[in-house]
């Protein structure tokens, strides 16, 4: 018989080990899944874990997909540490993409226009998240529900724009905008790769978040608001400020990712902007232990799942939803493994 006992203190070792155990369990379940579907599990694992890293170009693509995931996850990490549950990063991402596209279409060929495009994206995401903060503060609306529902509103707005006023007149009636002018596109820094400035911004974000969380009083206060609200009140930290900072930063980050995506790899606004990065970033944040450095690795892992899922679709004939299945498996395994941080298992001899 196995019995779980609460630990006196959370286990530091399992805090680190749990994500790896969760990954192992995910792979194991994946193998069982592929076998059950009649596919060769070794080939499937190759597609997920080797193909995305086998060549410099593939690595570049891995980074391109990891970049928006990481940027959104960094914002969410701050949010979740403050106990503010922004589940609607996807909506803020879409709004960022919309705002960035609007500016890109307006400015056209103005030199350095991409800077304004990025700023517009950040602002768009912030506004969408500010709505959540305002509703929670003013009406005590639950931010989980509100932020999630606003995702669907954002997607509808996107649909309206690309099927309606912003549709490219020369685009054979496809629901998409004009391709953005080169001046509004995010600069790339390597020929032959789609890696772009977003990577630099993401890495700066990692450093910035680390410094903010672990070296400044404001960042520390933000976490106290999440970890012990009564202590935050006792100290005199404003819970209002914590709410707004959390939502504005995470909304801004999601909006930034949206801007980088439309003005980067995509180059135009289409109905296919929402691909679930905002939701996947929640998993990235938790698998990365809400730690800026941890999130770098979990973003790469999640990016692998995206690329592996696409390859599995084309090469092995697996359904596209396999990506989502993998993401879900990983999150659930992690939540299960996390009990080991607070509990330990004991094998009891027969009662």
């Amino acid at each position, binding site marked *: 018989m196995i019995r779980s006992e609460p630990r006196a203190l959370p286990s530091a070792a399992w805090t680190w080990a749990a994500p790896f155990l969760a990954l192992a369990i995910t792979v194991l379940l994946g193998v069982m899944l592929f076998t059950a579907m009649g596919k060769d599990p070794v080939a499937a694992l190759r597609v997920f874990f080797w193909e995305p890293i086998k060549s410099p170009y593939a690595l570049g693509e891995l980074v391109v997909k990891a970049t928006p995931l990481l940027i959104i996850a960094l914002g969410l990490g701050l949010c979740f540490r403050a106990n503010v549950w922004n589940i609607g990063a996807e909506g803020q991402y879409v709004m960022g993409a919309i705002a960035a596209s609007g500016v890109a279409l307006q400015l056209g060929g103005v030199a350095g226009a991409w800077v304004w495009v990025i700023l517009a994206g950040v602002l768009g995401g912030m506004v969408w998240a500010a709505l959540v903060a305002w509703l929670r503060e003013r009406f005590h609306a639950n931010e989980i529900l509100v932020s999630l529902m606003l995702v669907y509103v954002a997607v509808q707005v996107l649909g309206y724009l690309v099927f309606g006023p912003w549709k490219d007149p020369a685009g054979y009636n496809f629901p998409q905008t004009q391709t953005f002018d080169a001046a509004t596109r995010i600069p790339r820094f390597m020929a032959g790769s789609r890696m772009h400035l977003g990577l630099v911004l993401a890495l700066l974000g990692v450093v910035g978040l680390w410094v903010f969380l672990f*070296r400044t*009083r404001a960042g520390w*206060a933000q976490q*106290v608001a999440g970890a*012990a609200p009564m*202590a935050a*009140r*006792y100290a*005199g930290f404003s819970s209002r400020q914590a709410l707004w900072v959390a939502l504005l930063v995470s909304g801004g980050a999601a909006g930034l990712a949206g801007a980088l995506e439309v003005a980067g790899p995509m180059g135009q606004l289409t109905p296919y902007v929402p691909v679930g990065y905002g939701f996947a970033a929640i998993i990235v944040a938790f698998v990365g232990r809400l730690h800026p450095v941890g999130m770098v690795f979990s973003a790469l892992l999640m990016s692998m799942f995206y690329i592996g899922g696409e390859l599995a679709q084309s090469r092995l004939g697996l359904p596209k939803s396999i990506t989502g299945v993998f993401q879900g498996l990983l999150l659930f395994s992690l939540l299960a493994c996390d009990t080991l941080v607070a509990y330990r298992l004991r094998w009891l001899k027969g009662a």
Partner: protein
Amino acid sequence: MPEPLLTLAGITKRYPSVVANDAVSLRVMPGEIHAVLGENGAGKSTLMKVIYGVTQPDEGRIFFQGEVVRIRNPQVARQLGIAMVFQHFSLFDSLSVAQNVWLGLDAKWTLPEVRARIVDKAAQYGLDMHPDRPVHTLSVGEMQRVEIIRALLTDPRLLILDEPTSVLTPQAVDKLFVVLRQLVAEGCSILYISHKLHEIRSLCTRCTVLRAGRVTGECDPRQESNASLSQRMIGSEPPTLVRQRRSPGPVLLQVTGLNLPRSEPFGVDLSGVTLSLRAGEVLGIAGVSGHGQRELLAALSGEDTRAQPQAIALEAEAVGAWPPPARRAWGLHFVPEERLGRGAVPGMDLAHNFLLTRHEAVGRGGWIHLRALQAQASAVIERFRVKASGPRALAQSLSGGNLQKFIVGREIDAKPRVLLLAQPTWGVDVGAAAQIRAAILGLRDAGCAVLVVSEELDELFELCDGLHVMAQGRLSARIDRDQADVALIGSWMSGLWPEQASATAGGGA
């Protein structure tokens, strides 16, 4: 010699970081009130949980009425005739007394039957209790009565009481003791857990003393003194406090006619609270908790800024609307009642917990100077003899007493002009409590104005120069410690103090 009712033989219970009970043996005879005395963390509660079947011992055997028993869960314990009243009540606020009792019983009685039995038991033991009252209308003492009646309905042979008097007024304690003595006269045995020495000496006939999980002695408490009992309990005698008379300085904190409606449904409205606190004195607020102490302290500390600005004054400043950091900057510091989660963040280390109320180690732009912060924390750990592995130790890894020493130390180290303390030694072991009290008196002698809110009258009498009593959101007039005694304060605790005195004191400001 009659057969013992309960015998524990070599009970050992290990937890990941500590051996809570180390080969504990104990014998309870029929019809005796057996005290289990020990500091917090000595293993009393663990031992009771073992007897009541909440946890299983790793080693050792339990005999009940001469037979080996395995108490797998509380239901088994109740079938044997063991009942327990926990320190924290398990009652549903929205249900009536009878419904609550009914829910907690294993027996297959109907609600009307339970109702009738409650009335019977209450009459039998002189416990005043109406079975149809909703629990949220009861005082804490009455809630405890519900728990006791629930235990008595099972006709226990052994009743376990865990720190039963911590929530009672002195008069209510006397009433409880009458009930307990009657129970014992009828043949029931009682295991009485406490760290209050005088209670044990007046009530109990046997006493087993625990220290750090081991039995350090068994004695007849009626033949011991407080000093000899505490020597057994902590291994040394606590230092006696020396209070010197001092003439107090100017008024630093003045509260005038503070009215404050409750901010949450189960809170208390403050009405017409008036007090003045002078430099170099310790003022105590007695009273059963839940009568507005929490609300008053929140208004004084700045956590609740809804008060009229003029109602609270620090020297000449009307500060009713100031937030906590502004009051701290003036020199008003506060030690809250809850240590984990309010006075300290459980999952953060001691050094970072300094940042809650102190900002000496915060540089320009809010940059945290880690070295300075850790040095600051280390200094307090050393000065107040906090048992911790260092400034990097997590707050939740400390025992209650040590964490309290750290928090009190953190606030004293800030050299406050006014210090507010809520239940400064609640749940703290005797050694640490003595140290904290000495520190409070030291602060007073250094000219600080100290306000202590406590349920423990002994503590207030030991520390304070003057006393107020709080009941139902109102504050009594001040009475000098030398004119007060336990009986008087006890009667004031039910809200009956002479209004005349209150009016006179209130008129001064």
